[in-house]
């Protein structure tokens, strides 16, 4: 019964979405206040209906209602509760419903927190947002309905893909979706602004928190996914340049660019058309990402829920929204006059450079991802584009970005002097180069990536700290410390995020430069050396879990005779799904991770054991989380709330420190 109610609520939400697409847009065009005002309650109603629908589906999973086909396919009574819940979105239909839920949540947020927007702008934003929701609801209802019942319910389900039964992956999709779909609101703002034909500083201030929130979620989502790949897939890597990973990286790069250019719109009223274009492209590429993931068009390890027919529908949705928005942009984009002027050496130019590098790197990843498809269709060559290409083609852009970041971040607005800005930084540049040289001397392999990366990481991280310190002005240390605590959230956010980026760069460089692998047959009780560590496989036992059977190895790790860790790598078999998985055991350390996986028993006795030492592995995700934290701090900047409280565009004299 509840399932049918959920189904019905979704259909009702679709009807509301259709009305909400038409009424506010017509109202805004004609200037009818009540038609525009109708959008707000409709946005809330849409969200409430979809939330109920989602709750009904979750209930079916929690109670293991095997009369629902989706539950049969993706759940099992013996599964732990958390995975029963995460099973809701661990499949195509459920993940689409989650997508729609997030979409309506952002729509409703624009209604709840957008009371300071001009009425026509808000009505148009809600109308555009609702048109996206309507398209996805139609797709869900007509091609991927999660609520279908089965005529003959089985006694038990077929279980969720064991790889997905993991806390990391339980939360990876919701965050990623909050990011992907969060960009929809920036898209709606951009399209609404194009319809209005007006983009001003106030628009920049309204759109930035939403873009920032989406970016924070996307950052966390990608970091979680990468971390999951690291400990679950079992070979110690963290990024595989898989099409699906690229599908999340491309919108992230665009969102990062958008975030930075929206600052220019807000502070300097320039780069308007470009910012609007970024908002359109950012969401466009997340739609494309969804299409890539869901259609299984590109060969990928992630295609758990692939289906080419549905893919075609998604392609139509993607093409429709992109074509519409881009045509509108072509017609109206030129009308977005720039106001603020700036010299060639200025913060604005720095941000333009940031935008060019980010956008081009995103496009390069896109070209590489789509190339196999292109090559096959256009010139009949079946080929692959793998990590070697992406490493070579993408890395230079990140290197360039890291080189200019500390300087660009400290240049003043309007007109700067590169010599004066460098004066505070050159000592740190020397330090960074020394660090790189040091790495180059110590490292054993000939690759340049580690020394260059280490130097850049240090340069960016120190640059972020210098930037923060410079905001305190002149005076006694005590005075400056006092001012430091009073700096606006945006300054702290900026420094934290840039510091995080530096740390991530440093960690990737060091990890790639110094990681070591070892594969061997380990005999019980006989230790072997790997780097500074001695590993001993003490025992292998059969252990039963709630819904799996495990072959568990007991490995002791020592260093110079001192005990370091007990690791328990496993190989699991999930009988319901009939799938084996490898569970790596990791001793997380500040400086390094020791990573062990258990392989097959060998004919001559002993077991295959693979061990990896991954220096600074934790720093990588710490850096990513710092980036997200920086965004979060920035989000809580008082100035956004000051702006939110004001009815009109906030006065120019908002408490902006001298810039």
């Amino acid at each position, binding site marked *: 019964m509840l399932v049918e109610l959920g189904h019905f609520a979704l259909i009702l939400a679709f009807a509301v979405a259709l009305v909400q697409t038409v009424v506010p847009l017509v109202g805004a065009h004609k200037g009818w206040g009540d038609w525009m005002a109708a959008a707000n309650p409709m946005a809330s109603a849409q969200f409430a209906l979809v939330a109920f629908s989602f709750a009904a589906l979750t209930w079916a999973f929690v109670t293991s209602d095997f009369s629902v086909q989706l539950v049969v396919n993706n759940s099992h009574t013996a599964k732990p509760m958390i995975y029963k819940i995460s099973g809701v979105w661990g499949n195509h239909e459920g993940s689409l419903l989650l997508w729609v839920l997030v979409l309506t949540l952002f729509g409703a947020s624009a209604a709840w927190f957008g009371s300071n927007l001009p009425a026509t702008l808000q009505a148009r934003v809600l109308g555009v947002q609702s048109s996206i929701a309507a398209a996805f609801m139609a797709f869900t209802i007509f091609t991927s309905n999660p609520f279908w019942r089965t005529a003959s319910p089985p006694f038990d389900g077929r279980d969720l893909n*064991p790889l997905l039964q993991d806390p990391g992956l339980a939360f990876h999709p919701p965050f990623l979706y909050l990011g992907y779909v969060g960009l929809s609101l920036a898209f709606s703002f951009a399209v609404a602004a194009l319809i209005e034909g007006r983009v001003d500083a106030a628009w920049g201030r309204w759109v930035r928190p939403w873009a920032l929130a989406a970016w924070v979620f996307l950052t966390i989502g990608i970091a979680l996914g990468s971390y999951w790949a690291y400990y679950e897939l079992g070979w110690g890597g963290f990024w595989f340049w898989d099409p699906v990973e690229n599908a999340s990286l491309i919108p992230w790069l665009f969102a990062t660019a958008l975030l930075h250019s929206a600052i220019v719109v807000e502070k300097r009223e*320039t780069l308007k058309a470009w910012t609007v274009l970024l908002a359109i492209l950012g969401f466009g590429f997340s739609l494309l990402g969804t299409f890539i993931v869901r259609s299984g068009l590109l060969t990928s390890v992630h295609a758990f829920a692939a289906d080419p027919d549905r893919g075609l529908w998604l392609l139509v949705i993607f093409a429709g929204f992109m074509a519409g928005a881009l045509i509108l942009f072509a017609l109206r984009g030129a009308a977005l006059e720039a106001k603020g002027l700036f010299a060639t050496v200025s913060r604005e130019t720095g941000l333009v450079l940031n935008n060019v590098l980010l956008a081009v790197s995103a496009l390069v990843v896109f070209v590489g991802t789509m190339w196999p498809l292109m*090559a096959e269709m256009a010139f009949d*060559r079946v080929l692959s584009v*793998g990590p070697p*290409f992406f490493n070579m*083609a993408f890395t230079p852009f990140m290197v360039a970005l890291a080189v200019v970041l500390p300087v660009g971040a400290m240049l003043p607005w309007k007109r700067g002097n590169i010599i004066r800005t460098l004066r505070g930084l050159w000592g740190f540049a020397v330090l960074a180069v020394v660090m790189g040289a040091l790495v180059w001397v110590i490292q054993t392999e000939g690759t340049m990536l580690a020394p260059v990366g280490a130097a850049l990481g240090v340069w960016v991280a120190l640059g972020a700290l210098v930037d923060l310190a410079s905001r305190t002005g002149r005076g006694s240390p005590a005075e400056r410390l006092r001012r430091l605590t009073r700096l606006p959230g945006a300054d702290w956010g900026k420094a934290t995020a840039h510091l995080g980026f530096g740390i991530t760069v440093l960690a990737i460089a060091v990890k790639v430069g110094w990681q070591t692998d070892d594969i061997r047959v380990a005999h019980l009780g006989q230790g072997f050396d790997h780097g500074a560590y001695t590993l001993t496989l003490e025992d292998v036992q059969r252990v039963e879990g709630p819904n799996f059977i495990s072959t568990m190895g007991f490995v002791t790790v020592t260093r110079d005779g001192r005990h370091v860790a007990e690791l328990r790598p496993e190989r699991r078999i999930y009988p319901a799904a009939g799938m*084996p998985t490898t569970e790596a055991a990791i001793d997380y350390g500040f400086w390094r991770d020791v990573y062990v996986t258990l*392989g097959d028993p060998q004919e001559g006795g002993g077991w295959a054991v693979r061990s990896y030492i991954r220096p600074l592995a934790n720093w990588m995700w710490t850096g990513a989380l710092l980036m997200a934290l920086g965004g979060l701090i920035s989000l809580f900047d008082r100035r956004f709330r000051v702006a939110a409280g004001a009815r009109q565009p906030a006065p120019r004299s908002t408490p902006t420190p001298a810039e």
Partner: protein
Amino acid sequence: MRALFLILILGLAMPVITAPPAQAVQPDEILDDPALEARARALSANLRCVVCRNESIDESNADLARDMRLVVRERLVEGYSDAQVMQFMVDRYGEFVLLEPRRDGWNILLWASGPILLLLGLGIAVTAIRRRGNDAPEPLSEAERARLKEILRE
């Protein structure tokens, strides 16, 4: 080649984890000569497992990946150079096995996409900045001047 690709497409329907629970490189595959083994690992990392989803044979668990790894090692032991081994694999399995696409024909466009797009982006940015930077107003055109005179006369 077409047939092979069809098989690959059909293979998509199967999750990659249905592969046997073996693990990537097995201890019994490892060559005694560490230099040769290092070359084998480096080559394997750039060869695609043709039945997997975007995995190199170095990290794949599939049986076929093991076979391919063994072929690479056999060739190396026989004294093939790295390039010869790669060519051998391409002859046997098609260009599809190369994770690093060749720099020939249309692929040059792929490899050049980064620099081309960068130049394009920088070009657009520079023109935009130049336009912004020159804040001196444009001189009036003939028509505008005439119109101005007219206004002043009124």
